[in-house]
């Protein structure tokens, strides 16, 4: 099942910008509005747009369901590992990294890392739900 030529090409032209924008929201979540969850939703939407326009059968070799499951599990485990590393430095959930300068992209200790993990996890999770719904067709 494939949509028409115009829809396919337009989604192709828009999707790199959407991916870049979601990575921007993910990395700059501690400076600007947004955060991990929103970035993950945009990331999932940019892939779902491509899949609905081109047909999920045609993209089977480029995106794979197993990858998304693996990414989601790895990210869930790494969030837990990251918050429990703080035990070594004093307390659970302790922000153990150097805080940096106020208002720069590299600052805030482990908050950007937390945003990245949550963003990838949410994006992969929505893709897994999408695949589960797709199985009924």
């Amino acid at each position: 099942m494939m949509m028409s030529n115009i829809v396919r090409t337009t989604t192709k032209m828009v999707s790199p910008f959407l991916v870049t924008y979601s990575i921007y929201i993910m990395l700059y979540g501690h400076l600007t509005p947004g955060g991990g969850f929103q970035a993950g939703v945009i990331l999932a939407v940019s892939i779902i747009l491509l899949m609905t326009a081109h047909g999920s059968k045609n993209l089977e070799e480029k995106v794979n369901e197993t990858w998304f499951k693996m990414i989601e599990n790895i990210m869930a485990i790494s969030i837990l590992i990251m918050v429990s590393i703080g035990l070594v430095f004093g307390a659970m959930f302790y922000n153990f990294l150097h805080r940096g300068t106020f208002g720069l992209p590299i600052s805030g200790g482990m908050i950007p890392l937390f945003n990245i993990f949550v963003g990838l996890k949410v994006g992969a999770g929505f893709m897994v739900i999408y695949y589960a719904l797709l199985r009924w067709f």
Partner: protein
Amino acid sequence: MTADNLKRLVALLLVLSLAYVLLPMEYSRSDDMVSYEHYVENWEEVGVSNLVMGVLADWRLYDSVIEAMIFFTGVLGSYLLLEDESK
């Protein structure tokens, strides 16, 4: 006592114990220090310019991590529920 009745008894006990803990708590608003005043005063402590992210990912990181785990459980549950049984 059958298994169903046991489940109902456990649920009733859980609800009653929650009510015992939650109902006597003090819900009136205290005038001396409201939570957002504390957040705005100690903004520099976290070192990020987005205060919402500071609250979510530093002061209330416990909440956010459990929320991520809840999302994980939701994905897992919908994946198992929507499995196609014909295959």
